[in-house]
């Protein structure tokens, strides 16, 4: 009696074995079955932190890239933003399993061990795909350069804005003939404006939504107004703290006054945007709220944070493309990553719909961008960015914000005196300056990954 024919169990086992072997084979080749299925020669693995409206816009841009570049398949993964994202990216780069392209906040790049966890951009390749330094705001570009090499390709800047309800304020005289908020140049003018606005504010609403209890927002507002006063953080060599306690006290008193004078409410510290939709005249929010407010069909405008200390400056961060470290970076995949990043940066009109200001300056002068309101009203923020200092412990939701943010909050809510909080901030900055960067074992003063 001969061997029976292939039964169902053997067939399934055979298919399973082939699948596993195939997967291992694809993995070894550095490509995937999905890339082959799409007919693409190259697959670019891309990690980002964009969800919500940003996620929708990014996916639309990726789809446009896929259509324009059928030879490149983009395998995009969206991970939770903030520290979980940075932890995953660091561990993937350290374990040589990094994606081909990633996104980071520009302020975090310095602390992300450029040269070890990040690879520099190939300027020739970027130039080949039409990206040149001259097309970017110089301050933005300079922040991305470390030890003379470009480690981040800026996609946008996102800023803190003063949103205002035109329909609520029209009876007050605070809206000029051009339909925009009348300019403010001093603290007194600003509080005079709030006093007027309070008269037309519906009962139960705040005059301004301020994220009073949020350590990140309060810190961002502090950075903006401290920069307006010309305040500095450290000396050029990062060896000494130059933080000015008097200027900081002035800023903290200014923030505190909103609560003390009854324009903002600690009990409604995190519902500024919701209240704005319901009729609160002002709210200070990130530009990412533009799609929310536009979606609600509000009659509103948005300016950079008011220059109450005489000089324009609003807090700004930037989403940037990075190349997470790969031992054998190069070849078609690396070229694909450059091509994809250059494409998205240059086609950021879609991205601007999410409220962000495109970093690629030629976009800003296009007719399509000029038509965007209120985006076009605050585009000037690109030229007066207030940033965190360029040290390893700074950047979005980084150690600096984590340490100093609660101190700002304690002053704004009234549980610490502004002068005492300012002195404490100086002490915290000195401690951070003396702290060693765990990535390279150096303090900021000892150099490390600082330009």
């Amino acid at each position, binding site marked *: 009696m001969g061997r029976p024919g292939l039964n169902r169990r053997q067939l399934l086992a055979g298919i399973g074995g082939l699948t596993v072997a195939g997967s291992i084979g694809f993995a070894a080749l550095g490509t995937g079955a999905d890339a082959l299925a799409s007919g693409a020669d190259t697959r670019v693995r891309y990690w980002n932190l964009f969800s919500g409206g940003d996620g929708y816009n990014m996916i639309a841009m990726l789809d446009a890239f896929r259509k324009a570049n059928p030879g490149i398949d983009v395998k995009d993964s969206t991970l939770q933003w903030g520290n979980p994202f940075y*932890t995953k990216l660091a561990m993937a780069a*350290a374990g040589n399993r990094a994606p081909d392209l990633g996104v980071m906040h520009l302020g975090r790049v310095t602390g992300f061990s450029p040269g070890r966890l990040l690879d520099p951009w190939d300027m020739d390749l970027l130039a080949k795909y039409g990206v040149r330094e001259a097309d970017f705001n110089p301050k933005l570009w300079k922040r991305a350069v470390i030890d003379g090499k470009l480690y981040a390709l800026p996609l946008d800047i996102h800023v803190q804005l003063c949103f205002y309800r035109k329909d609520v304020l029209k009876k007050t005289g605070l809206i000029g003939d051009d339909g925009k908020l009348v300019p403010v140049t001093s603290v007194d003018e600003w509080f005079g404006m709030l006093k007027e606005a309070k008269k037309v504010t519906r009962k139960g609403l705040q005059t301004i939504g301020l994220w009073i209890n949020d*350590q990140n927002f309060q810190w961002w507002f502090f950075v903006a107004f401290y920069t307006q006063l010309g305040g500095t953080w450290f000396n050029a060599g990062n060896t000494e703290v130059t933080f000015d306690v008097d200027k900081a006290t002035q800023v903290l008193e200014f923030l505190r006054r909103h609560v003390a004078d009854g324009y903002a409410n600690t009990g409604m*510290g995190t519902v500024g945007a919701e209240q704005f939709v319901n009729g609160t005249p002002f709210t200070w929010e990130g530009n990412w709220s533009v799609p929310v407010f536009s979606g609600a069909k509000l009659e509103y405008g948005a300016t950079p944070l008011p220059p109450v200390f005489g000089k324009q400056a609003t807090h700004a961060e930037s989403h940037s493309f990075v190349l997470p470290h790969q031992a054998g970076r190069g070849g078609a995949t690396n070229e694909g990553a450059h091509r994809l990043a250059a494409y998205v940066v240059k086609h950021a009109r879609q991205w601007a719909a999410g409220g962000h200001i495109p970093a690629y300056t030629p976009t800003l002068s296009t007719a399509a961008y000029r038509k965007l309101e209120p985006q076009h009203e605050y585009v000037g923020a690109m030229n007066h960015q207030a940033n965190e200092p360029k040290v390893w412990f700074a950047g979005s939701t980084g150690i600096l914000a984590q340490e100093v943010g609660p101190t700002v909050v304690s002053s704004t*809510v009234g549980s610490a005196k502004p002068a005492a909080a300012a002195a404490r901030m100086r002490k915290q900055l000195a401690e951070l300056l003396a702290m060693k960067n765990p990535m390279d074992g150096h303090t900021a003063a000892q150099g490390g990954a600082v330009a």
Partner: protein
Amino acid sequence: MTTTSAETVIAPARARTAADSATVRRKQGFQHGGWFVAPFLLLFVLFVTWPLLRGVYLSFTDANIAGDTASFIGLDNYREALHDSMMWDSLGRSAYFTLLVVPCITVLAFLLAMLAHHIERGKWLWRLCFFMPFLLPSTVAGNLWQWLFNSGTGMVNYVFGLDTPWLTDKSYAMLAIVIETLWWTVGFAFLLYLAALQGIPGHLYEAAKLDGANAWHRMVHITLPMLRNITGLVVALQILASLQLFDQSVVMMDFGPGPENSTRSFVQYTLEEGFTSYRVGYASAISIIFFVIIAAVALARMWLLRNREEGAR
């Protein structure tokens, strides 16, 4: 009694055979049992013993999250921890939370168990209501109470006519987490008490009644003494669980440290040091310190219990 020579010869042989077969059984039992235990042992070594030993090693290094530049720095991490005010603050917060939660949960679980034990109508419904929150994942319970405590739109303020900033003011934030924890976890202690109450023999109460003991006397002289062991167990388990405060607070505070750092627990601080500040070596050192503290609490509780039992004897 006398024995024949034949019996004398046979007896040791029987004994030997019996001993041999016991050994064989033990060996077979070990072999079979060993196979049953092996998967657990493997997982235990892989996910508990090895990480623990690795953690001890890392605590003597300056390892970062990338892990490839670690160098041995002796006791430096431990020396730094002794002067780390953030660490002591977070430890104090975990201890404060424990002090608030443990007595409340013990008393509440006892009262609920008494209620469910004595009530006649709808007994199953009471048991279900008290125990069910314990079945919820921590994220679900945390999110639920985050909504309830929302100062603008939350039901707590609405129902009680309050204007309390539960989650945004440092005076209330920890209290909000305590209330959520009580609701979420009381079911387990409640179940232990209920089982213990059902185990108290009914004749004790009958005898006491015949002797004229009223309800209060029966509670003080029968119920509470009979529940002493279970109370010890509930307190010990709650102390160990509460010291490890993490999920409730991070979910309710949106993964932040709470208003002015008022809810940052020790476990959260350890996580931040390791995964935000990337200081894996230092995070390992403070987690070892925490391990020692928790072990000391557990040993102290055992020692107290043993002394009390010996005293009772």
